[in-house]
């Protein structure tokens, strides 16, 4: 009885010391390894092509069909345009990021495949109103997309100039 109590005592003690030493070895090993974190504002993480960030709209393709707004579970897309025959005069295409949950359900039903979610994600603001983004003003585009937009605009202007002559 006494011997078993003593051996239990001894086992507890040695177990404690050994497992502590083992744990400290693991932490030391990690201490010597390179950290895995990304220093965020300086380094940007790679988001991958399918990232579901802030939406962008290819305004030229959109046909004002409301399918995206209907598919949205939280009704955060609102759009308004006037039809002039085939031409559309856009008044508004807003997305309320106070409500949006970035679920991509609005992207799938679009018949023209013209609403997408981009890699932009920073929505920090001091004003709730800023969270209602107007997708028509090309806000929230990446540099590349802005460039594309600029090209399209330039093309349009050219065509308009050509049509005017």
């Amino acid at each position, binding site marked *: 009885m006494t011997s078993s109590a003593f051996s239990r005592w001894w086992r507890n003690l040695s177990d404690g010391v050994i497992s502590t030493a083992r744990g400290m070895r693991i932490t030391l090993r*990690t*201490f010597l390894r390179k950290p895995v974190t990304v220093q965020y504002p300086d380094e940007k993480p790679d988001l991958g092509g399918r990232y579901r960030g802030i939406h962008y709209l290819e305004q030229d393709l959109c046909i004002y069909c409301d399918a995206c707004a209907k598919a949205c579970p939280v009704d955060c897309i609102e759009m308004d345009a006037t039809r002039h025959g085939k031409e559309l005069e856009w008044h508004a295409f807003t997305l309320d990021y106070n409500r949006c949950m970035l679920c991509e359900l609005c992207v799938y039903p679009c018949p023209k495949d013209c609403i997408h979610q981009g890699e932009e994600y920073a929505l920090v603001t001091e004003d709730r109103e800023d969270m209602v983004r107007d997708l028509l003003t090309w806000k929230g585009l990446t540099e590349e997309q802005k460039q594309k937009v600029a090209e399209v605009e330039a093309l349009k202007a050219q065509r308009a100039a050509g049509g005017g002559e």
Partner: protein
Amino acid sequence: MDGNFISHLLSASLPPGFPFWGLALLAAFLGALCVVGFVSILALVSVWLERKIAGHIQARLGPMRTGGWHGWSQTLADAIKLLTKEDVILRGADPVLFRLAPALVMGSALAMFAVLPFAPGVQFADIDLGVYFLLAVASLTTIGVIMAGWGSNNKWSLYGAMREAAQATSYEIPLALSLIPPILHFGTFSLLSATEQQSGWGGMQWYIFSDAFWVAIPSFFLFFTAALAENKRAPFDLPESESELVAGFHTEYSGLRFAFFFLEEYAAMFAASAVATAYWLGGWNFPGMTFLSTGSLWLPILGALAFLLKAMFLVCVMIWIRWTLPRLRIDQVMTLGWKYLTPLALGIMVAAAGWEAWRASL
């Protein structure tokens, strides 16, 4: 020769005829200023170290942004933030105890630094009963913590305070017992003379390398473990244990008063490491010190550096342990204290006494 290096410096530089009481007061004031400054800087450095070590242990970097190089000024910024924060005293709190507690805790932490021998000639007071003064002053912290817990009028704080009371009283015993082997070996309670006795072998005759190493090493580990518990460091951080007691005894503290508790923790960690350094790891002695002439100014400088490095290394080990282990439960803390550390410390004490007696009889 009475007085410490500060009073020596002063008496050399003051005009002759300066009254003695004035000198004593001035020396005390300057000494206190030195300690406060030293402890504050120490705490800043240790907190930064803790964060960086914790970060790297956890495969991340820790604070990186404040102050440029590896976030060195993060703790400074935090200190400023704490100083400027609102000092909240709850309506239901005991106003006297609540205010007194951080002062008491801080005072006890500062008083510990009075007897630490930093370098040859650099010590604030060489008391004959140095270690026992240190232990006595250190346990004042416990009273401060209990006052804080009771005065906060918060159940979580009270739990923290009660745990601290139980834990600190139980661990004082193994802590004091594990100090007996070096005391027997050096035959002194004074940290200064113990350090001086370890200067042989070209600065390497440390207690853990001496002929009594086989008691020195276990007693060192015992002291270290008991000191962890005394200082409420993980795995013995029961009084604050944030996943159980929110923040334990300092839940209700904010601003400067909270900073005092924070500072005390790091000061006490350093003090415990410093005692271990002075008794087991040769204090300021470092290999190669024999090449320096006795009067050289390099001796105190390098000695202080060696002392600080050794003590900081032990502080880092404490940090390392904290970020490795889970926390014990209160009854397990008591079990470990009474059933494991105390008997072991007693056994080592007897072994050390036998060894020293045998050696003396040779």
